[in-house]
């Protein structure tokens, strides 16, 4: 099954409540995906000129001060900001997205870079939504946009790395409900072109494919339109970038999605139950998006 949720706030007065809004959405959909949970939070709170890197520690009580010292020794930069998030950390540094992710990985290969960009922070872990959100303090987080996922694994193992979202380019995150049938072929083709993969997960292939198109200048509409043509299988995809949130469903449309829009926000979820606690939801226009149509919301 899997559950996916997304919320894009139009009213800045709600930015402080983003975590409070998104945690119940994920919690309700834990029944659709109890294996692992992940969320990408978008907040423009990075210091000027800095990129935020969401880093996953290999275990509890990781030596983050040692990691920061190695970063300074290796790259000659100190993080301008270091935030501890449960076991993990978010480091804001002037390292650019072209070199930063690899360098941060090389300092300690057991540390995973789960996302990077001026706005995005990514938290994911094995376990049901309530536990994972509690572990990383998601409820208290502010921001203007979030997408999240509750996973019921089908195509690959249940590990932290295999959890969604897949945030493989700057400020880009993808969550997926469904399964791709031809992903191994596409993956080989991308690998031949030099694309590196972190996991054998089918959704990561779609994330890397979309990121590749967008790196070549495609916008989200164009990237998702190509995804529809190239990927076979069942899917509802939710894609977030710094300035947009977009959804697409395959031609069979057997993976659900509900959209609700009010003056204050656009919210999407696999089932309406996940939207039921949102403010003024009874005033929202609620509908199910059409198959093979790309819905994009941007500023």
């Amino acid at each position, binding site marked *: 099954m899997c559950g996916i949720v997304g919320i894009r706030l139009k009213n800045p007065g709600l930015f402080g409540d983003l975590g409070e809004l998104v945690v119940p959405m994920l919690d309700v959909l834990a029944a659709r995906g109890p294996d692992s949970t992940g969320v990408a939070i978008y907040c423009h709170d990075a210091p000027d000129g800095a990129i935020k890197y969401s880093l996953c520690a290999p275990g509890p009580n990781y030596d983050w001060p040692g990691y920061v010292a190695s970063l300074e020794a290796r790259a000659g930069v100190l993080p301008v900001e270091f935030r501890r998030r449960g076991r993990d950390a978010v480091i804001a540094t002037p390292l650019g997205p072209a070199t930063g992710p690899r360098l941060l990985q090389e300092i300690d290969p057991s540390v995973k870079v789960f996302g990077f960009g001026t706005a995005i922070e990514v938290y994911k872990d094995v376990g049901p939504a309530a536990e994972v959100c509690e572990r990383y303090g998601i409820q208290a987080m502010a921001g203007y946009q979030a997408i999240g996922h509750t996973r019921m694994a089908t195509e690959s193992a249940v590990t932290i790395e295999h959890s969604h979202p897949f945030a493989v380019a700057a400020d880009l995150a993808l969550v997926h409900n469904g399964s791709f049938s031809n992903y191994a072929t596409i993956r080989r083709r991308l690998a031949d072109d030099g694309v590196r993969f972190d996991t054998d997960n089918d959704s990561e292939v779609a994330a890397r494919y979309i990121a590749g198109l967008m790196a070549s200048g495609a916008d989200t509409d164009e990237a998702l339109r190509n995804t529809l043509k190239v990927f076979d299988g069942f899917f509802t995809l939710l894609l977030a970038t710094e300035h947009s949130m977009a959804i697409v469903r395959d031609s069979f*449309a057997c993976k659900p999605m509900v959209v609700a829009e009010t003056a204050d926000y656009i919210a999407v979820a696999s089932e*309406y*139950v996940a939207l039921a606690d949102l403010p003024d939801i009874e005033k929202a226009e*609620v509908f*199910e998006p059409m198959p093979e149509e790309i819905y994009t919301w941007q500023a």
Partner: protein
Amino acid sequence: MAGLTAVELSCGDMTVREINSTLRGLPDGTVVRISQPRGRHNLAVGISGRLDITIAGNAGYFIGGLCDGPDITVAGFVGWSVGENLGSGTVRVQGNASECVGASARGGLIVIEGDASSRAGISLKGGSIAVAGDAGHMTGFMAQAGTILVGGDAADSLGDSLYETIIYVGGKIRSLGSDARVEELTEADVARVSELASAAGFSHVSAENVTRVASAKSLYRFDALKDQRY
């Protein structure tokens, strides 16, 4: 139906199972309001009493499924398979509906005042479905009997693999499914559409101007069973 008594059941206090079991114990004619549905699935399922039930907000999957008698109104949106396997009675949705409206229904009337998503009337076996707005792709897929009326436009593959259900569309048809074809509208069709539009409360549908879609019968044949009735 004249309301005998008014009963309020809140999803805030009761489980879906408790609500449905309470509904089954109410006498015919009772007026019931189900409050705070909050997207719950399976509300008012398997009810055979002649109740007048209002669900006061957006609801989840299978609303009013397997019912045989009540008149149900949902003041909002519904998830998948509203009125699934309906036997008799009515289910009226005042908002939009997700996929598979009236899947396998055998009788009764299902009215969607907004739009319906994909596969409305899939495997319909009787009764009527009336959608005021647009209907999604594969509406009427493998539908066997009964009537589907779409007041607005129909998306791709309308009536794919149709059997004996007749589909009427007030707006445009994006594409027909396999073995579905447009047929000439007869006086009997106009009467059937008028009656259904009137029962649904649709004043925007002009019965003389709908498009009739039925099976071309090139995919399904019962020649081998020609002595049997179906």
